């Protein structure tokens, strides 16, 4: 087992209470930061740590913080994006549910670094029970003088609020999240201006993922240089991976970035191998929006190197033979899973979740879903495969927010790597629509 930063005390009974959390070293970073460090020093530590956004895009957090505009007399905000709703991702929910104080501590330290006096945790609407847990933790922190006016006698004030969303996936996009937090319809904004200049209530705002913020206390306590030693290359630190699919041991794992993918799938301390000893067919390594990779390409890069669980290694080969770490939702498919059906399922999700603001995504996601539905249910035509690729290309890069890309990539990659399977569905509709039928023609080639 590697180093645990986020999950070290997560199974301690009663860790969700302030008392137990403090016994295990909780809120040390708040004391250290507020009493001995200036806000800029905290930002510097985070910069040195090389911490990257854990929500999916992997943008360096320290850099994001230093971009925050600081005009005189205008409030600044820190918003925690807890609107985790990508299919396959469940790390934030699990983490907040188990250890809410870790997030609250991260919020206080990070808000201090950014000079924010009001901060928000925007939580997905379906997670009402987690919201209650968080509110309880925040109330405890207020009572202990860790939130509110003059925190720990340092003269720094902070109010922390939890705001539930209405349950829309699009509100995980940072500008849509801000619109929703302002009480408007959750449509993404046109960028620029970026939130770092004009965000929440037209003021400079930083939006960070739960896991990113929860990593900050450790960095403050142990210095950024220590954090940078963990991991591999520019992928520093540890990452929570939500592993699901046909594996023996699904759940959330904290890994040091740089663990080989093969070890992650087959080692007993992580996924524990494929369920019932079947063959690995494909993996979606970073949540439903990233390209799917067949077994041979997920274990080894196109150049024949071992693929590692890191930002760089997973995206090696671009979209031709690579994918992305994304939010760390590792979805494993065994030999009995139908890629066409799975792709249709993803397309259906994006069709349902498109906000409908810009035309390529509004119309294109529905179109892709309908074509995939047709192929899956045995009514496809030969030209449908090229049509899918073409529609995906018409959406990709032409939309206001990344949801369009997220809808296009899984479809385009599935066709790229599993074209034979799509063709089989079209040429043999009767066999393909039989219950439990799966195409096995390509299996030897991709598992070799």
């Amino acid at each position: 087992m590697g180093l645990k930063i986020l999950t070290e005390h997560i199974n301690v009974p009663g860790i969700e209470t302030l008392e137990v959390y403090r016994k295990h070293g909780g809120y040390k970073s708040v004391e250290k930061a507020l009493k001995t460090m200036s806000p800029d020093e905290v930002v510097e530590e985070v910069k040195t740590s090389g911490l990257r956004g854990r929500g999916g895009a992997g943008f360096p957090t320290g850099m994001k913080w230093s971009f925050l505009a600081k005009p005189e007399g205008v409030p600044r905000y820190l918003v925690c994006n807890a609107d985790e709703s990508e299919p396959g991702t469940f790390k934030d929910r699990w983490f907040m549910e188990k250890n809410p104080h870790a997030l609250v501590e991260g919020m206080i330290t990070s808000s201090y670094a950014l000079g924010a006096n009001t901060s928000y945790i925007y939580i997905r609407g379906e997670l009402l029970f987690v919201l209650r847990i968080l509110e309880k933790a925040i109330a405890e922190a207020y009572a202990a003088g860790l939130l509110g006016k003059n925190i720990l006698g340092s003269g720094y004030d902070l109010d922390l609020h939890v705001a539930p969303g209405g349950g829309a996936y699009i509100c995980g996009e940072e500008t849509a999240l801000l619109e929703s937090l302002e009480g408007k319809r959750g449509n993404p904004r046109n960028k620029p201006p970026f939130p770092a200049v004009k965000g929440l209530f037209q003021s400079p705002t930083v939006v960070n993922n739960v896991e990113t913020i929860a990593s900050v206390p450790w960095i403050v306590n142990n210095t950024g240089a220590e954090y940078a030693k963990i991991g591999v290359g520019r992928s520093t630190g540890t990452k929570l991976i939500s592993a699901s699919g046909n594996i023996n041991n699904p759940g959330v794992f904290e890994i040091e970035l740089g663990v080989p993918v093969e070890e992650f799938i087959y080692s007993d301390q992580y996924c524990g191998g494929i369920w019932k000893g079947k063959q690995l067919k494909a993996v979606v390594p970073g949540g439903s929006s990233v390209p799917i990779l067949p077994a041979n390409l997920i274990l080894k890069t196109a150049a024949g190197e071992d693929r590692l669980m890191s930002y760089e290694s997973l995206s090696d080969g671009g979209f031709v033979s690579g994918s992305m770490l994304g939010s760390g939702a590792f979805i494993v498919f065994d030999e009995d899973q139908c890629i066409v059906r799975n792709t249709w399922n993803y397309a259906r999700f994006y069709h349902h979740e498109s906000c409908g603001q810009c035309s390529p995504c509004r119309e294109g996601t529905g179109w892709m879903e309908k074509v995939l539905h047709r192929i899956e249910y045995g009514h496809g035509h030969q030209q449908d495969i090229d049509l899918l690729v073409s529609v995906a290309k018409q959406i990709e890069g032409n939309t206001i927010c990344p949801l369009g890309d997220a809808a296009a990539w899984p479809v385009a990659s599935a066709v790229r790597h599993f074209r034979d399977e799509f063709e089989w569905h079209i040429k043999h509709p009767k066999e393909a629509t039989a219950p439990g039928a799966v195409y096995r023609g390509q299996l030897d080639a991709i598992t070799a």
Partner: protein
Amino acid sequence: MAKITFDGIEVEVEDGTTILQAARKIGGDVVPPAMCFYTPLKGSGGKCRVCLVKVTQGSAKDPRPMPKLVASCITQVQDGMVVENTTNEDVLNARKGIVEMLLINHPLDCPVCDQAGECDLQNLSYEHGVSATRYEEERRTFNKVDLGPYIQLHMTRCILCYRCVYTADQIADNRVHGVLGRGDAAEIGTYIENVIDNEFSGNVIDVCPVGALTDKTWRFKNRVWFTKPMDAHRDCPTCSGKVTLWTRGEEVLRVTARKDQYAEVEEFICNTCRFDKKEVKDWTIEGPRHIDRGSVISANHYELPVVNVPIVPNLPVSTKKNLPQE
């Protein structure tokens, strides 16, 4: 001031101008089309994506190209920016794709649509669309929504440009309609049946780029290319009173605000002028209005689009079919 190169043409504009406005300053064929952006409405733009352009050089200081195509209506110019529109194949292909997206769920009922002849979507499709559809599924339809005695909402034709929402927010007050639902189920509506009742509500008809919002006093009365646009004004206590009358013979069939060549309203007018003053004697006629848009309405009245048509003066209608076919 910022100097930019647009399709190889240099133009100097004020700082903070958008790429689209800079292109309009050049004018002519290089101007990107715009379906959702509307100069008088703050916050509009960025939604339809037909105005996408390629920025091959960000600015003189930072000459890197922008990684994606950008919406020209909301992207501000930088000094030394180089932009490609009609000279870039990626841009034209992307635009073609977006026009296809806009049309897959559009009913294409131009023959019975009042907007035909002055429809932005129609013009866009002529210029950038394809002749055949690749869409086989059933098109999305909505029931017609009644928005009171003057305005008809036909949601099936809507492209969700949000212009009418901004108009109701900024020109008229008390907005009662908005966008409900999301994705391709999003629709303009009032949620609970409601009448858009405001002295300036009629302007939503003028800003609508398609036939989704139409004037009930004009619906199915005539085709736009049969009518004659005349500039006229009256002494109106609520608005400027400067309008365009669309007449046929002695009849005033429709009153609209005056629009420029990009179909943008110069001065918004009130409902009294638009819906109630339908007699020539209500107005002081200034003279014929020259329509400068690339639509049927401008072609029919002021220029003859087809050459080599045999012109026989004072031809009786009945002898038309006996003309020699050349």
